[in-house]
C-alpha cells in the first residue's frame, strides 16, 4: 500500500483506479459531529466489509517525523480502554473475521471482513478504540522495531523500491509525496510515544471519519448503529490538511542510485494534475486513457515498441492515479537486461512519447482503451474489498463517491486529439526526473 511499492502493481493500479458501482446504489448519512457513513448493499453472500477511513496520512506529518501516520496505524492494534494489546484482532478472528489496515500519503483506513451478522459489534469495537486508545510506551517501543523491520524488508533490501523512493524525493520540492509513507529510517529511529499521542489528539477526530460498509447489510440498520457509536464521539476541530502547491519543474533532473542489484532499471516521473470534478474532467480523463494506451492491455504501446520491437528493455510499464490530492507523480519505468542501456531506453521512450504527442492514435486503439477502463469497473465489483476501497478513497480525498458516473462519462468522451494534447502538455522531458539503478557488484555468491 505504500507509494514506494506502487510501481510493482502497475496494471493493478490502473484497474483499481476506478472500481465499479453505479453511484445511485450508494446510500449515505451525515452525523452532527462530522462523521459520514456510505453504504453499498450487496446480498450475494452473508459477508460484510467494514472500513473506517481517516482524512489523515503521511502528508500530515511534520518535518523530522516522517512515518508517524503509519506508526500510528500500527498502534491502533495495541490496546484501548476496553481491549488489551492485540485483542482487537483476536476478537475479530473469533467471530470469523479478518482485519487489517493501510496508510498512504492521503489517508489511513482500517478494515474488517466479517460475517454480516456481526457488523454491529465490530462498529462498536472500532468506535471504542478510536475514542479511547491506550498508547502505551512499552507497546510503542516494541512496535517501532517491527516497523523498522518492515522498512528494511520493503525498502532497504529492495533496490527497485529504493530507486523509486529517491526518485520521488528528487522530483518534488514541496509536495509531501516526496517523503516515503513508511518514513525515512533516520526519522523512525527518533519518533517517540509523545509524538504518537500528539498525532492522535490532533487528527483522530470525528470530522475526519468516513465509515464505509459494503455487503449484506441494511442501510437503515447500520445508520442507527453508526449513529450510536461513531455518531456519539465528541466533536473537535480537525487541523487543515497540508496541501502545498508544487512549483512547476524548471528543467530535467537526473539521479543515479548505486546499490547491489542484478540488473539495471530506469524510472521516469513528473508531476501531473489530478481530478477536480467539473473543472478538469477532459484533461484528467485523457491522461488516464493515454496511460492505458501506453501501459494497459495486450497491445500496450510501451511494451510493443520498447520491448518487442526495439529490444530496449525486457519489461516496461507506466502508471497514473487520477484520484490523488494536489498532484500525482506520473511514472514509467524500464527493466533492463545486462546489455541494454539506460540511455537507449530513455531515447526510445521519448521517441515514442514524441510520436503520440504529434500524431492522433487510431479509433480502434482509443475505443479499446476506453472499453478496458470501463470493463475494469465491472470486474472490480467482484470484490467487496475493492468496492469499499474505491468509495473510501474518493470520499477521503474530497472528490466524493457520488461523482463516479461523471468519471466514467469523462472517460467515454475522450477523443484522439485530447490524448495527443495531454501527452504534449504534461509528459515532457523538460519536466521529468529520471533515475537509474546501477548495479554495484557484490563479492558474495548469494545471488
Amino acid at each position, binding site marked *: 500500500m505504500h507509494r514506494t511499492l506502487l510501481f510493482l502493481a502497475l496494471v493493478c493500479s490502473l484497474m483499481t483506479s476506478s472500481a465499479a458501482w453505479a453511484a445511485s446504489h450508494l446510500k449515505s448519512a451525515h452525523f452532527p459531529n462530522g462523521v459520514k457513513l456510505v453504504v453499498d448493499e*450487496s446480498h*450475494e*453472500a*452473508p459477508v460484510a466489509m467494514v472500513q473506517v477511513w481517516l482524512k489523515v496520512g503521511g502528508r500530515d506529518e511534520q518535518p523530522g517525523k516522517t512515518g508517524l501516520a503509519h506508526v500510528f496505524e500500527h498502534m491502533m*492494534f495495541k490496546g484501548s480502554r476496553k481491549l488489551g*494489546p*492485540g485483542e482487537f*484482532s*483476536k476478537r475479530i*478472528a*473469533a*467471530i*470469523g473475521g*479478518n482485519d487489517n489496515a493501510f496508510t498512504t500519503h492521503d489517508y489511513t483506513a482500517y478494515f474488517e471482513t466479517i*460475517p454480516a*451478522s456481526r457488523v454491529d459489534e465490530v462498529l462498536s469495537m472500532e468506535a471504542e478504540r478510536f475514542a479511547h486508545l491506550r498508547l502505551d510506551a512499552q507497546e510503542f*517501543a*516494541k512496535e517501532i*522495531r*517491527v516497523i523498522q*523491520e*518492515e522498512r*528494511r*524488508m520493503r525498502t*532497504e*533490501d*529492495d533496490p527497485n523500491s529504493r530507486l523509486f523512493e529517491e526518485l520521488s524525493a528528487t522530483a518534488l520540492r514541496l509536495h509531501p509525496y516526496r517523503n516515503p509513507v513508511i518514513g525515512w529510517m533516520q526519522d523512525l529511529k527518533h519518533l517517540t510515544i509523545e509524538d504518537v499521542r500528539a498525532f492522535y489528539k490532533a487528527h483522530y477526530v470525528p470530522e475526519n471519519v468516513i465509515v464505509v460498509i459494503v455487503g449484506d447489510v*441494511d442501510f*437503515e*440498520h447500520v445508520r442507527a448503529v453508526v449513529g450510536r457509536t461513531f455518531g456519539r464521539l465528541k466533536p473537535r476541530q480537525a487541523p487543515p490538511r497540508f496541501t502545498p502547491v508544487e512549483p512547476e519543474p524548471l528543467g530535467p533532473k537526473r539521479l543515479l542510485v548505486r546499490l547491489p*542489484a*542484478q*540488473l539495471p532499471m530506469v524510472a521516469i516521473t513528473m508531476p501531473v494534475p489530478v481530478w477536480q470534478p467539473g473543472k478538469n474532467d477532459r484533461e484528467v480523463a485523457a491522461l488516464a486513457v493515454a496511460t492505458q494506451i501506453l501501459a494497459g*492491455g*495486450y*497491445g500496450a504501446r510501451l511494451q510493443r515498441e520498447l520491448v*518487442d520491437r526495439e*529490444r530496449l528493455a*525486457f*519489461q516496461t510499464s507506466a502508471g497514473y492515479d487520477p484520484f490523488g490530492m494536489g498532484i500525482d507523480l506520473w511514472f514509467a519505468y524500464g*527493466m533492463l537486461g*545486462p546489455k541494454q542501456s539506460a540511455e537507449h531506453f530513455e531515447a526510445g521512450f521519448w521517441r515514442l512519447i514524441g510520436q503520440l504527442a504529434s500524431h492522433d492514435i487510431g479509433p*480502434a486503439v482509443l*475505443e*479499446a482503451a476506453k*472499453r*478496458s477502463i*470501463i*470493463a475494469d469497473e*465491472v*470486474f472490480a*465489483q*467482484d*470484490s*467487496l474489498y475493492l468496492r469499499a476501497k474505491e468509495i473510501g478513497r474518493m470520499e477521503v480525498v474530497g472528490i466524493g463517491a457520488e461523482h463516479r458516473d461523471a468519471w466514467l462519462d469523462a472517460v467515454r468522451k475522450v477523443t484522439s486529439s485530447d490524448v495527443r494534447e495531454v501527452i504534449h502538455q504534461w509528459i515532457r522531458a523538460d519536466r521529468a526526473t529520471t533515475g537509474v539503478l546501477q548495479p554495484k557488484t*557484490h563479492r*558474495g*555468491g*548469494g*545471488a
Partner: protein
Amino acid sequence: MRLVLACLAVVLVPFSAWAIPPIQQATLANGMNVLLMEAHDVPMVAMQLTLPAGSRFDPPLKGGAAALLAAMLTDHTARHEHDAWAGFLDQHALRLGSDVDKDAMHISLTVLRESLNEGMGALSEALLHPGWNEKRFSILRQDAIFAARKALEEPGVVASVAAHGMLYGDHPYGHRSEGSPDSLQRINMADLQSIYRRQAKPEGAVLAVSGDITMPELLRLVRQHLGSWAGRPSIGRQDIANPRPVRGQQSILDMPTTQTLIQFVRLGPARNAPDFFPVFVLNHMLGGGGFGSRLMEEVREKRGLVYGIYSYFVPLTVSGPFTIMLQTRADQADEAEHIVRQVMQTFASGRISQRMLDAAKMHLVGSFAQRMDSNRERVALMSMIGFYGLPLDYLQTWSEHVRAVTLQQVRQEAMRWLKFDDWNVIRVGPIKR
C-alpha cells in the same frame, strides 16, 4: 418493510447455515470435466482451464519449459500473429492469462457477459491452435531469462531456489516453475511442443466457471468452441514418485542485505492426505493464521523481531514443501531462529490447549464464506476440487471437517510434523567476514 425482514433473517439464521451455492457438474464426451457456480450479481464470467502440464513436466535441466509454453499459448496463435491477437483481445476487453504451478497449467479468462462468445473463442483458439512463432519464442525466452535474473535480487527467491534443490534434488518438483537463467537458456521450441503434444488433452482437464451464466449456456459454448478437442495426456496427474524425505540440512547464502531471511523447510502433506484437515488446522495455529498464530505472537507481538512470520504448506499430488519463513535484522537472526525452534518444540511435545484449537476452528469456520466471495476465488477453488478429484460437496462439508478436528489429532500431527530435527534451515543474508 422487505428490507427490515431481510435484515432480521440475517440476524436469526446462524451464519454457518448459509447455503453455499452448489457446484454444477458435467462431463463432456471428450472427458473434460466442467464445473460451474452461478452468480448473477455482476455481468461478468470468470473461468479457468486446468491441465496436467505444470513444471513437473519440464524436461531435465530445462526448468521453465511449461511456463514458457503457457506464455506462448496466450501470446499469439496459428490464426493471429501477436499484434493482431493483442488487438483482438483488447477490442473485446478479454482478460486471457496463463500460468503454471508444479502440477498444473492454467489458462484463465475473465470476460464481460456481453463478450462471452468472443472470450470462449479466444480461449479455444489459444489452446487448440498454437502459433509456434520462432521470433516470438526467442523474445519471450530472452525476457524470461532476464526476469529470472532480476528475481534473484529478492532474498525470498534466492532461498526458494535453494529450498527446491535441498528438498527435491532431481525429483520433478525440484525447481521453481519460472525456471532459472541457465535452465531457460537451454529450452528450445521442440521442448514446448513436446509438452503440448503429450499433456494438453481434454481427458482429466477441468474447466471451472463462475459468474453470470447457466449450465445450458455454458455447455453450448463449450461444445461449440472446444468440441473438436480430443485425447488423453500421456502422463496422468497421479503418475509421479514420492520424493524422499530430507532432514537436518543447512544452507547459508551470502547476500548484501540488512536483514537475514530464514526459511525452515521440510516435505509436507499431499493434497489427498487422509490427515489433511488436522494438519491444516495445526498450521493455522502455528503460523498460517496471521495475527492469531503462535509464531506471530512470539516473534513479532512479544519481541518485535519481525514484520511478518508465516508458515504454510503447498498440498500437491505428492508432498509439496512445508515452510516457515521470517526476515529480521541480520544481528537478530540467531535469536529469531531460537524462538521458532522453541515454538516448534512446544507444539511437538503436545503442549497445545483446547482453547487455542477452538479459537483456530472458530476463525476458520467463520471466515469460510470470505474464501469464496468473488468469482475468481470460486474458480480457483473449483479448479482445485476438480483437478485433484475431491468430492463435489467439498465446500459444503469443509466446515464440518474443520469442526471435527480433535485436540488429540492436532497433538499427534504436531508430533509428526513439527520435530525440529526433521526440518532443514536456509539462511540468506550478509555473512560477516
